[in-house]
């Protein structure tokens, strides 16, 4: 499964478990408008760490916080240098 589909699937499952209504998941969707709250993002990052072995937020002090869904996916798609 591609990183992108893993992330989309995780978002959909977390939103369902947390009873959140998701906006259509397009690349330019602002994460703050996605329907997910901080706890959902925390769960997402933890789950992706379990599934991919990566936590790009903690890999570097230089991390720029993603604003859109596309940027979030890119953060996981790019190998850490």
């Amino acid at each position: 499964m591609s990183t992108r589909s893993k992330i989309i699937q995780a978002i959909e499952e977390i939103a369902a478990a947390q009873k959140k209504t998701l906006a259509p998941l397009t690349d330019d969707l602002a994460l703050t408008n996605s329907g997910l709250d901080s706890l959902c993002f925390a769960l997402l990052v933890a789950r992706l760490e379990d599934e991919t072995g990566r936590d790009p937020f903690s890999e570097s002090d230089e991390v720029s916080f993603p604003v859109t869904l596309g940027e979030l996916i890119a953060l996981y798609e790019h190998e850490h240098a």
Partner: protein
Amino acid sequence: MNTPEITLRGFLAQAGDLSAGMLHGPKRSLSLDVAAHCTGFKNREDFRGRSILIATEGQLAAALVLIELDGIARRMVLCPPGLADEHLRGIVGQAEVDTIVSGEADVARYSGSVPHVVSYLEPSGPMSPIPGAVRETEWILTTSGTTGAPKLVVHTLRGLVGAIAPIVPAARPTAWATFYDIRRYGGLQIFLRAIVGGSSMILSHADEPLDQHLRRLARCGVTHISGTPSHWRRVLMSPKRDLIAPDYVRLSGEIADQAVLDALKKAFAPASVSHAYASTEAGVAFNVTDGLEGFPVNLVSQSRGRDVEMKVVDDSLCIRSARMASGYLGVPDRLHEPDGFVDTGDMVEQRGERYYFIGRRGGIINVGGLKVHPEEVERIINAHPLVRMSRVSARKNPITGALVQAEIVLNSGGRNVDDAIADEVSALCRAELAPHKVPARIKIVDHLAVTSGGKLARPNG
């Protein structure tokens, strides 16, 4: 010479011209002038000597009631929103509450629980000077206790404003804001800064989406903003973050790590970014302005005889100052050590010339500023018939600081259906607990260590 009156109205009277200062709620705004001179009560004198629970839904009404009744009431209990009925009864009993001030819609909910339930209306009529003497009102703040029931922490306004320094006049008028509720210690500190300085304040509302909140902050000309690192991480992820251009960014309430400090410095340059250490019990201890996580060792080693004295005992930060609470109400729990210090339970580690916070003693888990006691989650998990014991701990998380995770040991009967049981336990937790308390991961283990004292061994415990 008379000592100036230490009340909210006293501070407003000393602040000079109030006509430019505004209190901005999510729906309406009101000038400090009106707040200082008009009343929303029929007769404020009725409240003299009473113990009053302020249970208005919104923060603007709570702010106005505080201004009106400080110096008249014996006691004001600041009630955070969403208080459960069982906790309400406890608070009424422990604080000897005889009066609840609420919004009109909630009068029915509270009536019968105390002798007087009063709805607060818009301030309209002029506030008549109160004939009797001004008294030092007790300010009661709530904090979560070990059983989940709030603990009532006793402060005075004198202590609460102890850390407030005058603001250096700037090019534009100061407008304070916080992502906290002003009925919590961290938010109250910001509200008091606005009152003492006669400056505007933009109040938050729990139901307001962040983007809308940021737009409102921008519209009201925010200059000084405070929040937890979790609040700020959320701001950093908002496309609307560029709407605000604060001069001052303050973090408190959780450990501020270097990544969030650096990200804020970059996002809001040239704003000054600082992180403060405070707790409801110990008050404000210090503010770190050098942009680095942790704090200099000499803040502690050179604190003897200063306004705020600090020491580190068994890795826990201990604080003594005139800003700390005087005690708890209604429970025998001791707030101070015999030497007068408050043991914060915030564990620090010295590396070089700096102390760094490493977490809470006893493993209290802080999920985005919300406390989780491992025991309350374990209690739910352990109720599952196939679970023998469980240990709940923190899992580090870059978004909320921590998430809850659980390890469970099954009864012998449950060996072959591990996954199904983990799902059942998860469902049980979702049904019984607030979302942030539900374990993000449940792991089935063969055994969990127990100390010689018969207690579950916890890291840092």
